[in-house]
């Protein structure tokens, strides 16, 4: 008997461990720091984020900040990734450290999934309200059905204050203002405690009497029917009737208390407006492009033709959120994240103004540690070793033109 008892005790302990493991098993995905592990071609050839602006670097609990900018849905979208016909403008933060108070694409609120088109540029804005203090990496993010999360650039934002001060008031269509942080919580606890208690009562009723060994002996002796007494049956009837009555009454009460309810709202939002990009008057041809592994530099030969009427210079090359600038032409004034900004990272063999009607072939070098840090160089190991990005040209008046490039990339190892 002692041995058996020990065995059962041991088994119980194992079971308890299993339970704890199982309960600890699942936590909803909280981190968005997968940005570097996402295949380089995914980041270079799907969504190009630009003109990004994080309105604040420090924000107090209950205060808001916005992340705004544009994204270009790349025309040369890779075959291996589903097209963004069903996509969702998300935000890459570690769980609800901010709440998403609003998000818009082309001026349309997008709480639900949207349909986007290749080759179009969209303007977006996400309004965040700070909830939990800490330093958070805040990324732009677009989820594409069949393509997974496409994580854009991230910037560190500090939230100050205390989470216990956070309030999230919402006014319903029935005219009530409630705080979503705690709304309905006591009701949830009450009903769960109530039903759990009733369930326990049912178990306790049977557990008061001897359970396993004597009952098993009785069943084996063919006396199973004596184990359930008429009183037991009456109690069971009462439980059954009670459950049905409580469900019916509580349901009626909640219908009375909440006469206006609607089904959950879902469905794809179509007809999202893209922005008209001004017609470009510059033609760029990529003659060749190489990535020099030891130098962490990409070199391309571009033939640029200026078909416009003002002289232009190349100011920026942007790929996967990393910005390579020629500081003589373009500077960043938005506080773009340091690790993604190469202020002097762009070298052009001849970056004097290209006069209207002229064509010139130049060597352009984009070099920065970001190639390695953000594992963009891994591109050369992709099955379809192509790169893509945005070129920004400026005229003397500061007018900007955006040109997309997309070409094969050859690595050099010496």
């Amino acid at each position, binding site marked *: *008997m*002692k041995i058996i*008892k020990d065995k059962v005790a041991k*088994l*119980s302990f194992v079971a308890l461990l*299993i*339970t704890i493991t*199982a*309960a600890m098993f699942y*936590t*909803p*995905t*909280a981190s968005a720091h997968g940005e570097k592990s996402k295949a380089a071609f995914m980041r270079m050839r799907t969504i190009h984020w630009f003109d990004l602006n994080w309105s604040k670097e420090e924000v107090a609990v209950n205060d808001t900040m916005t992340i705004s900018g544009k994204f270009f849905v790349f025309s040369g979208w890779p075959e291996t990734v589903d097209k963004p016909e069903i996509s969702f403008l998300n935000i*890459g*933060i570690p*769980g*609800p*450290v901010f709440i998403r108070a609003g998000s818009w694409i082309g001026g349309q*609120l997008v*709480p639900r999934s949207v349909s986007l088109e290749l080759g179009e540029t969209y303007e977006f804005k996400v309004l965040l309200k700070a*909830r939990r203090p800490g330093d958070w990496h805040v990324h732009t*993010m677009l*989820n594409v*059905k069949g393509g997974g*999360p496409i994580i854009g650039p991230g910037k560190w934002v500090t939230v100050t204050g205390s989470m216990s001060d956070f309030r999230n008031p*919402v006014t319903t*269509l*029935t005219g009530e203002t409630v705080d979503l*942080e705690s*709304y309905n919580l006591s009701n949830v606890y009450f*009903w*769960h405690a109530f*039903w*759990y208690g*009733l*369930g326990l009562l*049912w178990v306790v009723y*049977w*557990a008061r009497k*001897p*359970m*396993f060994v004597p*009952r*098993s002996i009785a*069943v084996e002796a063919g006396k199973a029917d004596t184990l*359930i007494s008429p009183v037991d*049956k009456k109690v069971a009837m009462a*439980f*059954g009737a009670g459950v049905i009555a409580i*469900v019916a009454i*509580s*349901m009626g009460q*909640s219908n009375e*208390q*909440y006469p206006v*309810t*609607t*089904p*959950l*709202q879902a469905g794809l939002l179509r007809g999202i407006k893209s922005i008209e990009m001004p017609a470009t008057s510059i033609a760029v041809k990529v003659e060749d492009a190489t990535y020099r592994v030891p130098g962490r530099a990409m070199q391309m030969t571009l033939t640029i033709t200026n078909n416009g009427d003002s002289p232009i210079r190349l100011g920026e090359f942007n790929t996967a959120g990393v910005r390579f600038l020629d500081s003589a032409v373009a500077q960043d004034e938005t506080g773009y994240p340091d690790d993604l900004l190469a202020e002097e990272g762009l070298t052009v063999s001849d970056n004097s103004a290209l006069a209207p009607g002229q064509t010139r072939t130049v060597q352009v070098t984009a070099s920065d540690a970001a190639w390695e840090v953000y594992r963009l160089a891994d591109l050369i190991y992709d099955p379809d070793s192509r790169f893509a990005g945005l070129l920004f040209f400026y005229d003397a008046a500061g007018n900007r033109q955006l040109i997309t490039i997309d070409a094969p990339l050859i690595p050099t190892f010496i």
Partner: protein
Amino acid sequence: MSASQSAVRSRAEAVKVSRTFDWLILFTLFFVVLGGYHIHYMLTGGDWDFWTDWKDRRLWVTVAPIVSITFPAAVQACLWWRYRLPFGAVVCVLGLLLGEWINRYLNFWGWTYFPVNFCFPSNLVPGAILLDVVLLMSNSFVATAVVGGLTYGLIFYPGNWPIIAPLHVPVEYNGMMMTIADLQGYHYVRTGTPEYIRMVEKGTLRTFGKDVAPVSAFFSGFVSILIYFLWHFFGKWFASTKFVESV
């Protein structure tokens, strides 16, 4: 302690040992079922049970009873036919709910800070009590499957409605109408759960208009009957492999 001291020498002692045994078995059963049932339910019911903005009147109502009648059916098969104990379903559901509450409170709220009013579990207790009551009254697993299974599916939505009704109050938000539950899903950012994977209000029951919840509940009840049969036999098979004796 010598071996002879642990042997049962009197009736009183036998009763005492038997009671200790009762509690140990119940405790073990509770936690073993909790572990298995919890994992099973997370894998099959998953997001429908995690988030209020998945608790709709079509798919949640259909899925939750079907995937949750499994363990109760199996454990009932063991406890009733071996011991005439009519609490198999309730023990399972109480175990599941305890595991879920620990998980939601520690992980969803404590670790990731999702408000509890957004990620509480579904209430399965009313159906479980009725399932046990039907088994006791009928002493027939076919009747329990048919009457109990159907009831289990039917009672699920009304049993949860008092808890979720306040979350279905509509809100106008920046020019769009949504329910409070939708708004919770929008506000409390889930990077790993984009909106399009949300399976709600989908299906072919459009013709039933407003009364889709009862239709879904009936459908769920019918499938629950089949699942009950299936898992009843799992339970029987499991109980007959001398599992208990081998302990």
